[in-house]
């Protein structure tokens, strides 16, 4: 999940464009990690040293690992360890951006270090992606502590991200949250009642909803019709259901879901405390709205 927030950081700092990030997400599966990015991320080498090693490699005609050892930047064991470690998602993204020429090694080094400092996350926390680290990332980003129901909001959004990765894809970037205002179009709403009252909505441009539905249904959908709406409705129903199960298991509080409703257009009056969470996919922005 660090990858998605790192993606947001890159956009926010205008280090890459939305198009470049989207392209990198699309192609990153075929990316082969290189020692330089791994060593920079591990804090074992600077970008400058990596560049020097690459220049030396062209002259010496040796493997890059050997060159880095010869130059005294890394030990043989460190090279082996770096290659052995399964690269985290954000590294794959970073390597793809470097390979495509959207960033240099130096820019990547600066960005990854700055983001780690901003998020106050250590390397093990990033690598482990355990519940506590995910919650920390989400709280840092959304600042739910300043809102009512912050614990539930954090639980809700943490699960939402997991479900997006599980059912839709990990190629998304969360954008800054905003407050609900004016009217919105193409909306699916589900109320939750019982131990607490919640309202959940999802809305987006029709083209984005169609692609979202296609990914969820694992079918090629092209029309904005009842079936497409049913697919998106089922995603939100599934997510809310799993949230209710978690709450029941963790606190004993029972929640009931109401049937979902679709609206071509609706006014956000009555949702003044709602938090809008835009999620950018390559196919468009999907907006989730939560009010507790």
């Amino acid at each position, binding site marked *: 999940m660090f990858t998605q927030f790192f993606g947001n950081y890159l956009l926010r700092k205008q280090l890459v464009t939305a198009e470049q990030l989207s392209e990198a997400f699309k192609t990153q599966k075929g990316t082969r990690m290189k020692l330089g990015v791994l060593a920079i991320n591990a804090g074992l080498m600077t970008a400058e040293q990596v560049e020097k090693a690459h220049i030396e490699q062209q002259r010496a005609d040796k493997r890059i690992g050997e060159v880095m050892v010869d130059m005294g930047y890394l030990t043989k064991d460190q090279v082996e360890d770096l290659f052995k470690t399964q690269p985290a998602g954000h590294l794959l993204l970073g390597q793809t951006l470097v390979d495509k020429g959207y960033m240099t090694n130096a820019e990547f080094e600066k960005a990854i270090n700055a983001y780690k400092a901003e998020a106050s996350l250590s390397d093990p926390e990033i690598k482990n992606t355990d519940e506590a680290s995910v919650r920390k990332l989400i709280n840092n980003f959304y600042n739910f502590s300043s809102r009512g129901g912050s614990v539930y909001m954090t639980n809700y959004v943490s699960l939402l991200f997991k479900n997006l990765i599980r059912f839709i894809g990990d190629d998304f970037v969360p954008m800054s949250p905003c407050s609900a205002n004016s009217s919105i179009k193409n909306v699916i709403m589900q109320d939750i009642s019982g131990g607490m009252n919640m309202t959940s909505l999802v809305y987006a441009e029709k083209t984005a909803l169609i692609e979202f539905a296609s990914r969820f249904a694992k079918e090629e959908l092209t029309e904005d019709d*009842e079936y497409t709406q049913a*697919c998106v409705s*089922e995603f939100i129903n*599934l997510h809310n259901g799993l949230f209710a199960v978690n709450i*029941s298991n963790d606190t004993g509080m029972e929640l009931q879901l109401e049937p979902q409703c679709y609206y071509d257009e609706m006014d956000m009056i009555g949702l003044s405390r709602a938090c809008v969470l835009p999620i950018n996919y390559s196919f468009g922005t999907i907006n989730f709205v939560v009010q507790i």
Partner: protein
Amino acid sequence: MKILICDDSMFVRKKMKDAIKAVDPSIEMLEAANGRQAVEKYKSEKPDLVFMDIIMPEESGVDALSEIMNTDKNAKVVMASSVGTQENLKQAILMGAYDFLQKPIENADVARIIAKASE
């Protein structure tokens, strides 16, 4: 074998039909979009097995389960929901549900339930 699928989501009904077809294409399938329709179809068609969503407009799956069990105490009604809490599970079994299916629907779970109902 005749199976009644009751869910207000046409997407879930389609996925359920695909899962049943994968088990045995000869199984006859009936559909209902809410609890009221399900009760009517149950009475007229007497299916061997029912997959029933819980959260539906007009008449919930729980109410429909109750009505069907009053009509036929041997009815095999599987409750399906995304809210698979212990409480919901307990309530469904107490009301006479045959089984509980946690959404998202997995073909293997559908196959297991059909095999059990065919015994």
